């Protein structure tokens, strides 16, 4: 065991720090709508030029073209985290579509989409879930019927984050209705302004209709060229599974900063003149959460080491999403409790603390417990793939 990174990496860390000191945006680096979009594109392009975003994507596809190096990635994440700015952009285009195109796309698809996606010029949403197909995603019914060189799409997608602000969608549709469930699905790219697409916003429990908007998307006789299929027709399920893997990796948010924010809150908040931190009950809960957070932090270091050594992390590599999402939800619960009755405040009330962060964080964490494969689906994966427990027998067809 050796937790030193070595001189070469410490030099790299200094470079990242110098870059951030010089270029870090004073306020939020921009959003995906309106005038903020321009600032976002500038900020992402600068990061790509300096190699802090799209770092390992080949130059010909709009990336920086460096060799993959996990420790560099870890260091960049640590330094951006410390500086309090996101590295690149958390979006389904960057985190899910781009890795999928790199693995399965044609050169033409890569050249056309990867650069603009990483620069934030093109926003994507993900059309997977349907009202009748959630955990059982492969049962999806949205159909794409062949019509000359095109497909005609009919159906409905749901839980579609940022559909109202996206230029493009990557979607799973059933192209081979007579094939078995998993073998009849294709992965298709199409513009959101195609005739026949209608987006309806879906208000979440957090009331949020901002950058994290949630939607339903309806498809009525939507025409798309067959050339927009990624990979081969009928292979969409396999291709989507590589994407889902990327999604689960991207949902592993680090709770260390949230614990620190909670500590500051507990030092400030007073009830009857006594700070929350002086309450043995609250302090005990804080220490429990801190231990869980540290365990996840060190676990991430262990998983990075497994990757560096090309070792199979086994079941230990499957548990991160399940544990981190629950931990984040529990951290916000303590924060809400230490504020007493004022912990209930929401929607920018005068006495709200940390600008309403904790209630939002609580809703958001609950969403992540469900999204990207529910906690229950995670437990099926952990027990079946990780522990080798038998699959549940399928009910006999009636």
């Amino acid at each position, binding site marked *: 065991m050796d937790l030193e990174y070595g001189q070469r990496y410490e030099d790299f860390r200094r470079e990242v720090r110098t870059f951030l000191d010089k270029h870090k945006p004073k306020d939020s680096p921009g959003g995906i709508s309106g005038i903020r979009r321009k600032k976002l594109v500038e900020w992402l392009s600068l990061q790509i030029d300096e190699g802090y975003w799209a770092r390992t994507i080949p130059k010909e596809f709009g990336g920086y073209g460096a060799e993959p190096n996990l420790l560099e990635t870890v260091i960049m994440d640590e330094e951006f985290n410390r500086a309090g700015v996101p590295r690149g952009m958390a979006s389904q285009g960057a985190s899910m579509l781009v890795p999928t195109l790199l693995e399965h796309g044609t050169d033409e698809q890569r050249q056309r989409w990867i650069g603009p996606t990483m620069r934030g010029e093109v926003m994507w949403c993900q059309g997977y879930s349907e009202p009748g197909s959630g955990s059982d995603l492969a049962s999806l019914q949205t159909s794409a019927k062949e019509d000359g060189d095109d497909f005609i799409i009919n159906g409905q997608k749901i839980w579609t984050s940022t559909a109202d602000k996206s230029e493009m969608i990557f979607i799973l549709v059933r192209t081979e209705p007579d094939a078995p469930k998993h073998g009849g699905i294709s992965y298709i790219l199409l513009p959101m302004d195609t005739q026949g697409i209608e987006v309806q916003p879906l208000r979440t429990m957090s009331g949020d209709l901002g950058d994290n908007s949630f939607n339903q998307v309806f498809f009525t006789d939507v025409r798309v060229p067959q050339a927009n299929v990624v990979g081969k027709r009928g292979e969409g399920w396999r291709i989507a599974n590589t994407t889902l893997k990327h999604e689960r990796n991207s949902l592993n948010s680090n709770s260390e900063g949230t614990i620190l924010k909670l500590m500051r809150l507990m030092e400030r908040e007073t009830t009857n003149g006594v700070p929350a931190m002086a309450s043995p009950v609250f302090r005990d809960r804080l220490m429990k959460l801190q231990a869980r957070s*540290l365990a996840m932090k060190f676990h991430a270091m262990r998983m990075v080491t497994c990757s560096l050594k090309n070792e199979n992390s086994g079941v230990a590599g499957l548990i991160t999403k399940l544990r981190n999402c629950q931990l984040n939800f529990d951290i916000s619960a303590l924060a809400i409790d230490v504020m007493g009755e004022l912990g209930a405040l929401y929607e920018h009330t005068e006495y709200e603390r940390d600008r309403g962060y904790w209630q939002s964080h609580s809703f958001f964490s609950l969403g992540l417990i469900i999204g990207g494969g529910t906690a229950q689906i995670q437990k099926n994966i952990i027990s079946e793939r990780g522990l080798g427990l038998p699959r549940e027998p399928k009910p006999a067809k009636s």
Partner: protein
Amino acid sequence: MDFGLSEDQLMLEETLRSFLADRVPIGRVRDLRNDDCPNNREIWRSLAELGMTGILIPEECGGSDLNLLDACLASQSIGYSVTPTPFVSSAVMVPTALRELEHPLISGWLAGIASGDIAFGIAVTETFSIREGAGIAIDQGELSGKAMMALDICSADLILLAIGSEHLAVIRADAPGLKKARLITTDATRCTSELILESVAPEIIFEDVGKTIARMLDAGRIALAADSLGACEAMIEQAVAYSKQRKQFDRLIGSFQAVKHMCAEMISELEPARSLVWYAAHSFDALPDEAPLMACHALAHVSEIGHEIASVATQVHGGIGWTDEHNVHFWFKRIGVGRSLLGGPGLLRERAAEIQGLAKSG
């Protein structure tokens, strides 16, 4: 950056696990619970022959002078097979303390631990928790008073004893004036005792060694966390194996989501806890400023997840898991008593808060 085990460490673990599976299987543990003290000296000597008792002892005293992480891998393997042996006390806490102290007798004692000729017990509970009027006082060089929940005394040759939280003494286990009474716990694989001292002449007293005592407690807490972690690991393996062979409703019970999810919950708690224990053990040698906090968190956290794992793994076995005839209760009790020793989670968390300046100490 390498947050993982070396080839040597993996080999140490593999060697000890296969030795214990072969020489101290659960049937042997079951027999040992009928002895006056389960800490069998033959097992201690065999562990010495494997080099396990000398992991933290300098080479000139016959040890291998390795790190706490190595000792924790051994402790974890011992917990995995619920082996009765004074490892945490005699092979971890005592060498950690004695190495920081100076006296002509020390190198002989350390050599004796490394060779398996000497086993120590320890009585340090009163440094963090005084109950039943316990406490040891010095009067004209002699020791009198009471110590509760002393570890591994019955089969020991020598005892390392705390006097308040600032002084240490070594006494002979057969010293005149020392009365030892075994305190029976639920865990038949461990030895705990009450000591009554009436004018006991010590071999030696070390005065004003509070820092050494604190460091010894840190090492002990991390190694005890590793012991419980190993026991948790074994319980999950047994539950998973049982659910792959037990049938109900014409199905393996492991194919029911209810049972699967119990197993997934257990393993998803165990693996990050393993990472925490590794880090805590590593910090003890490489990042000593962090070690006191990590020791508290490691033992408290493993105790919390252990409570759940011990219960759920037993439940997966159904009714047979609640019988004495089935073996799973040995692990349940090892984890349960491990939770009570060297502080307990509530005390450890309060200590963790104090260390960070979040609570007033004392």
